[in-house]
């Protein structure tokens, strides 16, 4: 689906922002991109759909080389959610906003209207509402709805949950997760390690423009070397599991922790009962 082959990128006046990065993301994967501020995460995401072109190396999406394909052509099958929804919203109604993005991919107006109605229902949005009068979380949802209405096969998310409260964050992430379950590939930047632990299955870690970690979320979240180099703190449950030692090494979720602690408490109770 997405392939980076020895990609480097630098802005005109700066030293390399992305340096010799190679990886491949397959269809249906849910990948999180982690790293400290200034590591080059947003730059890397912009390289994925041709908003930026690599200085050297090759980026291909579904076989299309981003250096030679128009961004608007790549946008036909990719969706990109920016941190700031206000850069995307440009219509006076929620309905108009969702329709606007569809104009470029669906020539048939009735199909556009059907797709818009479907999206409004999925997100429980009021089509006649004024998007600019809504909260940031709601505007982020509208921006996401407008992208998802286009049914992209690759979804690029630049910190989709920044500025959202817990409920809004879960609503957005559950929609993304459901889409991923239906086959959409998701590549997401996030600083929220709990969100990454709960939803992503693979993690890429960027530090100083270099890829320093690539693997299953369970492994990377428990790799102290990679986490330290990228100035990251693991999610709470993996952190607790690491603190508790090797016997908790495989624990990653709240349910797993609850099961293990429960089993141990039961075993201890039984052994205490036997001794007494």
């Amino acid at each position: 689906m997405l392939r980076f082959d020895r990609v480097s990128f630098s802005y005109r006046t700066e030293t390399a922002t992305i340096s010799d990065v190679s990886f491949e993301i397959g269809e249906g994967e849910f990948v999180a991109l982690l790293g400290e501020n200034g590591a080059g995460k947003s730059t890397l995401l912009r390289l994925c759909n041709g908003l930026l072109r690599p200085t050297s190396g090759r980026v291909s999406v579904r076989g299309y080389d981003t250096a030679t394909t128009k961004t608007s052509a790549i946008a036909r099958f990719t969706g990109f959610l920016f941190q700031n929804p206000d850069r995307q919203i440009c219509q006076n109604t929620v309905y108009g906003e969702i329709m606007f993005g569809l104009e470029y991919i669906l020539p048939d107006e009735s199909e556009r209207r059907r797709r818009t109605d479907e999206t409004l229902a999925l997100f429980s949005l009021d089509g006649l509402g004024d998007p600019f009068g809504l909260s940031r979380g709601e505007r982020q949802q509208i921006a996401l709805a407008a992208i998802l209405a286009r049914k992209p096969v690759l979804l690029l998310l630049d910190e989709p949950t920044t500025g959202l409260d817990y409920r809004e964050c879960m609503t957005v992430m559950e929609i993304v997760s459901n889409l991923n379950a239906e086959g959409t590939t998701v590549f997401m930047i996030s600083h929220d390690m709990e969100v990454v632990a709960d939803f992503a299955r693979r993690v890429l870690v960027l530090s100083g423009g270099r890829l320093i970690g690539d693997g299953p979320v369970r492994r990377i979240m428990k790799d102290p070397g990679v986490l330290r180099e990228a100035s990251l703190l693991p999610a709470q449950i993996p952190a607790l599991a690491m603190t508790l030692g090797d016997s908790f090494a495989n624990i990653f979720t709240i349910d797993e922790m609850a099961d293990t602690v429960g089993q141990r408490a039961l075993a201890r109770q039984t052994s205490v009962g036997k001794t007494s």
Partner: protein
Amino acid sequence: MNGFLSYVNGSSPLHKLHPLTKMVMSFALCASCFLSGNHVLILCVIGLNLCLFASAGGIARAVSTLLSFVKFSAVLFVLQLFFIKDGTPIFTLPLGITLTYEGVMFSLLFVLRFLASTMPLALMLSVTPVGDISNVLVRNLRVPYRYAFVITTAARFIPLFSEEMSGIMEAQTARGVEFDTRNFIKKIRLLIPLCVPLLISSVRRIENSAISAELRGFNLRTRLSGYKRYSFGANDATILIACAALVAVSASGIWP
């Protein structure tokens, strides 16, 4: 990322001039273009602007700015051509459109003036921090601080708006809007809906700035304060004499 009207840090002789000298120089370069109707003189002013940019270490930015304005100027030139019908005909197009010698010369003068007069402001802002402009307006030109603040804030916001517009265009391109088209008319048509998000984000940003200034006691200022002092040197005097000479030559009609 530097917009074309933002300050570029440096220590060139131009950077070290008194801010007032730089403002006068910018005004003199602009004025000379409008005082003279001579194409060669205006071309020389454009060349002088480029040399000054080069001396301040900003030639790459100046050339890229100039090239982007040249594209716009080409459109202006063509439009202008069609509106001037008086003079000696040199060419007749279908639909009875006649190009005249005077029309061509005036259109050329028009775009040269446009190019030459936009560069000095960019030059001045690229070598003068906005704070220095504000200080000079208040201290030397006796402009009330409130108005100086408005002027400098407007100058500070231009690159921010330009960056915001780039961000908006990027967001729209990512959802399939064809800003990467080569068709200029189509591009303009696509830009119109984007005025909405630009306006909204600009108003939000300005409102935040106003609230922030208010919370830091903007309205409570009763006297001027500022630690920076600027001194006139030999370079300032030289530049001011050169500016006076340029304006005099342009106005005198020595070079008609």
